[in-house]
């Protein structure tokens, strides 16, 4: 049980590459914090710094009121679940879980009791004598979790623990991890590149990009009010439509009289035949592709008329090619490819960003 606080944490590699460019983060006791971002954004590095597997160039990491910058991983009272599970291949499941307790000189009966309790919770009681090699991916994942929970640490660290599982198992384990964490009430930091995983697991969601934190907050708040165009495009699938606008267009007043970037979520667009709603947007589109996924249908349309400057909204991961708009329609009815359609969204569904995408202009 502990708070985890990061104060202006930085990481610079010996070659001069700055992996973490000053991160401040406060995770409350028992909270589930998810670090999400594209690969190379520094989220795993940050987690490894909390674990003590990477040195901290500057700043402070505080676990349960103690600055741990110079503390060995073993003495930080943390447990980590690795992406490849990192089970000890020569040890049985039982010994894999007991290893950390034995190293700390715990009495045998207590080790046995803790291992069996963890095995019961994770439903791996029947496999205690097996070697990791004899287990399926999902079972290995459980053993890795078991190894973390027997220690009863202050903080759990998860480094993309589900990315080696197939899609179905991933969803099942995701729910289990959340339930387990609620039940144990242990502060957790979880790294993932999967925004859906991030949205469903997090109490506190941290969106990272290029070594900096783009936004911290409750997942739904972030979804509803993304602070930057990067967050807008990264959180939510399919991503938010982002189109540049000229000064005064849509009646949007931008300080300094400049243009900006307008964001609309695909689900906020509806097909219409009339004019744009008061203060809202209207896109004239030619349907280029249709994706039917059952409960909903995604329509990919190219904007009719002048395409925007490609440089205006490109080069960021997850964003759409310029001029393409995605519309989410409920159900399975959809226009045909090549058909002309009109999609519109009212004023209160619009997100307005500065032209550089680094700040949000409407509150």
């Amino acid at each position, binding site marked *: 049980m502990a708070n985890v606080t990061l104060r202006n944490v930085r990481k610079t590699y010996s070659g001069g590459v700055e992996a973490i460019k000053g991160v401040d983060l406060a995770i409350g006791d028992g909270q589930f914090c998810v670090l999400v971002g594209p690969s190379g954004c520094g989220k795993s590095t940050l987690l490894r710094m909390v*674990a*003590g*597997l990477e040195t901290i160039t500057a700043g402070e990491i505080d676990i349960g009121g103690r600055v741990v910058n110079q503390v*060995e*991983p*073993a003495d930080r009272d*943390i*447990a*980590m679940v*690795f*992406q*490849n599970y*990192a*089970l*000890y*291949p*020569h040890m049985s499941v039982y010994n894999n879980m007991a*290893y*950390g307790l034995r*190293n*700390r000189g715990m009495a045998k009966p207590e080790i046995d009791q803790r291992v069996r309790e963890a095995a019961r919770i994770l439903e791996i009681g029947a496999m205690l004598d097996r*070697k990791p*090699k004899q287990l399926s991916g999902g079972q290995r994942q459980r053993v890795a979790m078991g*190894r973390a929970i027997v*220690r009863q640490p202050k903080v759990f660290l998860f480094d993309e623990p589900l990315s080696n599982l197939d899609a179905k198992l991933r969803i099942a384990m995701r729910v289990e991890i959340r339930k387990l964490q609620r039940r144990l009430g242990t502060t957790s930091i979880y790294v993932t590149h999967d925004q859906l995983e991030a949205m469903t697991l997090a109490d506190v969601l941290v969106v990272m990009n290029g070594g900096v934190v783009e936004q911290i907050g409750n997942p739904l708040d972030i979804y509803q009010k993304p602070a930057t165009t990067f967050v807008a495009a990264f959180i939510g699938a399919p991503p938010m439509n982002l189109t540049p606008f000229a000064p005064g267009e849509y009646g949007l007043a931008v300080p300094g009289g400049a243009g900006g970037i307008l964001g609309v979520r695909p689900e906020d667009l509806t097909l219409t035949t009339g004019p744009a709603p008061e203060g809202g947007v209207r896109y004239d589109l030619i349907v280029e592709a249709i994706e039917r996924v059952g409960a909903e249908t995604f329509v990919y349309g190219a904007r009719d008329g002048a395409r925007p400057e490609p440089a205006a909204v490109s080069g960021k991961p997850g964003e759409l090619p310029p001029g393409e708009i995605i519309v989410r329609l409920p159900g399975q009815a959809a226009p045909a490819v090549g058909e002309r359609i009109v999609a519109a969204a009212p004023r209160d569904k619009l997100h307005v960003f500065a032209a550089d995408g680094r700040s949000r202009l409407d509150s």
Partner: protein
Amino acid sequence: MQKQSVFTSRSLPWLLIAPQMLIVLVFFYWPAAQAVWQSFLLQDAFGLSTTFIWFENYSDLLADPDYFAAVVRTFVFAAAIGVSSLSAALLLAVMADKPLRGVGVYRTLLIWPYAVAPPVVGVLWLFMLNPSLGVLAHGLRAMGLDWNPLLNGNQAALLIILASAWKQISYNFLFFLAGLQGIPKSVHEAAAIDGARPVRRFWTITFPLLTPTIFFLIVINVVYAFFDTFGIIDTMTRGGPAKATETLVYKVYSDGLLGGNLGSSAAQSVILMGIVIVLTAIQFRFVERKVTY
């Protein structure tokens, strides 16, 4: 998926393997058969007549205390060379596996001795430890040690073991380094988080995960100590003083080529051939199920 070539003519496959088979026949089976035949013969001192004597060469050998001493000596040498060169190589490999500055240079330098031919190794060590010329020998005597491997059998044996082990360190180092690099970094990290200090981590994680490599290297090192040390022994001590460094292989050479007892020498090489076959069989069995943990 099975890889299978289909030949239309029956003679072509035979023709294709013929060069290889010819080499094996001429350079292995024929001499081996000769040795087996020779081991059943007794030649008179002038080489004028030979008599077929069945297994008498073998029974003579087994009754000969000299031969028994050579067997024991060979096993002692093999154990000493194996233990010292394996442990030194493991220590160096563990060090070289760390992210150090200039680790590439360090690794390359450690591999170099492997390129030195055994007789050259013998000469190098002889120069350093020769009682009258050797730099190290001079130092040892200055420390009050009566160092004279030319007269002292134990010191001569030590010299052979030292030179042979040194030569084999490079080879063992290569395999240990590869073995260490095959252990995922995250396993070490997990153990570190699990509270295992470096020494404990080595004995509970690294060492057990290296057992397949260690086992493989034991077999290789025993074969090396049995056979490939010939060049070192020949340049350094020629089996002396008073046969103190005469191993089984060297005895084959000295009895046969120097002593002229071809029958006994042939019988000894047949026994050695049997040992090689057993060792190779062990190794093959092991290679088949490589991962033992």
